[in-house]
């Protein structure tokens, strides 16, 4: 089973954001699917180029906000109108306009929490170990270099031909990524 996963993949290093977008498009066009790009800042057009046009995150945030909104209002209604009704000068128990500020704050709180939890969960963070960090030059990915990684698990991956393909994209260098 040595061939199964001798390496994690091959990684090419680029110096310009425009180059990495072109490289990612070329890799998709060549039929590679398990492709990821690593950049020091969000590069426009890159998620689409590696085949990741949309994220479900807004839906998660919306559900979080909805839960906060309904839950926040119901909490006040139940506390002040059902479980322990307080008669304040004959005003209605369900004095809903007075419940709006807390409902609003709970909406924002739950939506923002859902945004952060959803971001971490979908990104699979925290992740203490990842093979890409085995390339010493990868430290530059958080400074000024752009990396394209084609994973060995890709159906079309073949070490010599994929290396040839990456070399053809005129990168600064190509590295093997240890698993």
């Amino acid at each position, binding site marked *: 089973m040595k061939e199964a996963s001798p390496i994690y993949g091959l990684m090419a290093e680029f110096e310009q954001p425009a180059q990495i977008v072109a490289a990612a498009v070329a890799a998709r066009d060549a039929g590679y699917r398990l492709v990821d790009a690593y950049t020091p800042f969000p590069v426009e057009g890159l998620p689409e180029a590696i085949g990741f046009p949309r994220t479900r995150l*807004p839906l998660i945030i919306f559900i979080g906000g909805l839960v906060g909104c309904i839950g926040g209002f119901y909490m006040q209604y139940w506390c002040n109108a059902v479980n322990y009704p307080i008669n304040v000068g004959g005003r209605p128990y369900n004095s809903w306009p007075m419940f709006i500020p807390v409902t609003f704050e709970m909406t924002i709180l739950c939506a923002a929490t859902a945004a952060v939890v959803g971001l971490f969960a979908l990104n699979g963070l925290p992740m203490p170990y990842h093979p890409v960090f085995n390339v010493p030059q990868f430290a530059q990915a958080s400074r000024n270099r752009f990396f394209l990684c084609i994973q060995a698990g890709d159906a079309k991956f073949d070490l010599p031909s994929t290396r040839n393909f990456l070399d053809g994209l005129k990168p600064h260098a190509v590295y093997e990524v240890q698993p």
Partner: protein
Amino acid sequence: MAGTPSHPSNDFAELEPAVLAPGHTFASVTDKISAIVLTRPASRGWWFGLVVSFSLVMVLLTTITYLLVVGVGVWGINIPIAWGFAIVNFVWWIGIGHAGTLISAILLLLHQEWRTSINRFAEAMTLFAVACAGVFPLLHMGRPWFFYWLLPYPNTMKLWPQFRSPLVWDCFAVSTYFTVSLLFWYVGLIPDMATLRDNSRSRFGRIAYGFLAMGWRGSARHWRRYEVAYLIMAGLATPLVVSVHTVVSFDFCVANMPGWHTTIFPPYFVAGAIYSGFAMVLVLAIPLRYFYGLKDFITDQHLQNMAKVMLATCMIVGYGYGLEAFMSWYSDNPYEEYVIHNRMTGAYAWSYWLLILCNVAIPQILWSKRARSYVPLLFCVALVVLVGMWLERFVIVVTSLQRDFLPSSWGMYSPTFWDWSMFLGTIGLFFCLLFLFLRLLPAISMSEMRELVEEVEGPEAHAH
């Protein structure tokens, strides 16, 4: 990214000072900002500032200890003036915090590129200011160890908070504000934590920053979700910041107290909050860029823009003061009329006229472009505004409570030593946290600065 409208070599840039000095690359912005944390030794000035502010933190702790032992009677509060410095300082601090959220969230949504280099420390300012603010109502409760009674939790007394009370709204608003500001700040920090992890020379630094970076590796998929999350959180923080000071103003204006019971309070409080917040950002940014050589990133254009925001909010609060006086006359209500009359001519008239001087008269100098461009003057105006906004809250709290409906419940208020020591102590806490922040975390967002380089410099930015 198609056009480079603010390219420094075109004619337009000559007229308008740039938001980033020309010639920077991805590497140079990263290295210059991370150097403050990673390589540059702590300067004498930094140690001096830390020691002074840390001493004031000790003053704060001493005051709190004495307060807990003896009780809130150590303050100058009394009946009728039960709020005193505690609420004055609470409103002042929380208002200062608001500029941080405004810069980081609202200006992001409005595509104001100049926010990039000031948003990180403005957000830090928000967190520290809200922390300082929180101390006051907590201790003003008298028995702060029962603070959790404000929260709805099942208890043996089978009681719930009174959700029709603005004080409960305040508890929810301020705690939500702190939590969301912290989350927003942390999410913004994650890519920079990865940069520090990858560039730190010490093992401890790599572990500590690596822990905080949570394994961030800059994948394009992650960036996509990150941008979506960041933008939506900015969208959530924008109405939140408006709601927080609105709720703070409800603490006043839901009451029937003359001088408080007015519908102009919410907008005028929000504008005042932004006013004092921008003044504080200027007070912090001017020394920061001077001492750390960050004039390339926090340019004169930033100071100009902030001065303009201050001038705009100055006009709004000035309108607020005018309308308060007008409404008291127009209402034909003797109590309302008397409160304004007492503010202008009574025992605390000095505070009212000093407030008008600091908040309305002196900042008018910012109409002049020369005054806005002269940095020492701008710094002084910002300090004056901070004093003025503090006086505004003093006037609102003290002069209204001092003379209400019945002459039998009239009183006077004078702060004690412990009032002042507590106020000074929170200023110390604020600056102490800020000094630590400057050395431990990147004061300017490196990932956003790289993005700005890409937009401003275009394809040349890759050089070395």
